[in-house]
């Protein structure tokens, strides 16, 4: 059985068990969130052998060359010596610059960077609290002169991180922020292309950011945004999106509620179903889908069957952390 050595401690690697689980089972503190290879918060560095290829999927070439890998995706078949990368390699400490409730459950958290922070609206960052607890959130705005980013934090029942941000974290308090990640963002290569965006809940964050970014970059093609929630209270930024649609003739905004109560201000039904019923053909469209994982996978299929190419469908399912 191969072994893994970390901080001088050597552990056996049972078959089909990830390095992350081996370390967690041994009581070794390591940050992690999604366990699916998406959030990159369990990044480790190999000090001797080249990590198994599957454990480096999605990393930057520079990171791969330096031996970084994702602990949750690594099932070693030979002995490895690894270390946790130093905090400064991954995170920058940023002050909380603002807190504002967007509806009863969703907090808009503003973080102010001292140095310019290179990102695209729709990418996500990992936030890390002082005790190591880590969560991923999407960025809801394009880069701004004041170097701030905004995140939409939905309060989850029993959610340690979201409740801490909602109830305890103070303006001015520092929080660690990772480099931006993910490929769900606006690409300015085809400004006349039709864009379709479907979000549920706080999945609006990346899509509102992508839409704002697209318009700022001079996108002229039609853009359709469908935002869904069960009840009207679950929607947010409704007025801001309506104003955007009024200001830009190519923007079409559909707030949707699926809970069954009729309300003339909103479309009645699930956002993905209303999108499919509204648009007759998605050939050559670019499609962005963010929100509940079941909605994301269902709508991906619906959009593909309506003619969208799989390569033009960008998704960002919520990374709900396995507790």
């Amino acid at each position, binding site marked *: 059985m191969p072994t893994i050595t970390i901080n001088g401690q050597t552990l056996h690697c049972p078959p089909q068990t990830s390095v992350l689980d081996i370390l967690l089972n041994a009581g070794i503190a390591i940050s992690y969130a999604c366990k699916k290879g998406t959030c990159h918060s369990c990044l480790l560095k190999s000090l001797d052998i080249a990590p198994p290829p599957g454990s480096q999927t999605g990393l930057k070439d520079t990171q791969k060359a330096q031996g970084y890998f994702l602990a949750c995706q690594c099932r070693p078949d030979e002995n490895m010596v690894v270390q946790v990368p130093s905090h400064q390699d991954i995170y920058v400490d940023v002050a909380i610059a603002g807190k504002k409730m967007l509806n009863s459950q969703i907090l808009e958290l503003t973080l102010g960077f001292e140095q310019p922070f290179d990102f695209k609206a729709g990418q996500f960052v990992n936030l890390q609290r002082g005790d190591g607890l880590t969560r991923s959130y999407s960025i809801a705005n394009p880069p701004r002169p004041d170097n701030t980013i905004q995140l939409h934090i939905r309060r989850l029942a029993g959610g340690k991180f979201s409740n801490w941000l909602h109830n305890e974290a103070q303006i001015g308090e520092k929080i660690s922020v990772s480099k931006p990640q993910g490929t769900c963002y606006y690409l300015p290569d085809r400004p006349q292309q039709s864009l379709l965006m479907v979000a549920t809940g706080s999945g609006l964050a990346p899509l509102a950011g992508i839409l704002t970014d697209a318009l700022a970059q001079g996108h002229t093609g039609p853009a359709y945004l469908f935002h869904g929630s069960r009840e009207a209270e679950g929607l947010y930024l409704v007025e801001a999106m309506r104003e955007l649609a009024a200001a830009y003739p190519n923007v079409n905004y559909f707030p949707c509620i699926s809970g069954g109560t009729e309300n003339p201000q909103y479309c009645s039904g699930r956002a993905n179903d209303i999108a499919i019923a509204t648009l007759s053909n998605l050939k050559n469209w670019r499609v962005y889908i963010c929100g509940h994982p079941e909605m994301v*996978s269902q709508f991906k*299929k619906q959009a593909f*069957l309506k003619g969208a190419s799989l390569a033009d469908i960008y998704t960002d399912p919520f990374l709900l952390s396995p507790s």
Partner: protein
Amino acid sequence: MSESLYDRIGGEAAVSAAVETFYRKVLEDYRINRFFDGKDMETQLAKQKAFFTMAFGGPNNYTGKDMREAHAHLVKMGLDDSHFDAVMEHLGATMQELNVPNELIAEAAAIAEGARHDVLGK
């Protein structure tokens, strides 16, 4: 050496164009879509692309044994000749939509037909 069917049809670009059309037909066909309804659409599409590349006589690493192993779990789910026929139907219809000449469609169909016994584990 004469140009292969794969090159005459249009190579990788033709396969990429064909495979999404084909996959839509398969997903919408209630007779067979349960065999294709994997969780990850990209993985499924990659498999369809490998199938098309093979049917067009393009570069592929399929062996009869691979075919058997890859489809064994589907045979357990009830995969039989009727389903293979349905796939052949969609293969032909896809190529017709893309205006592939009939004689090339017949060649591709014959190659795909050659995999029937391995796919069905006979």
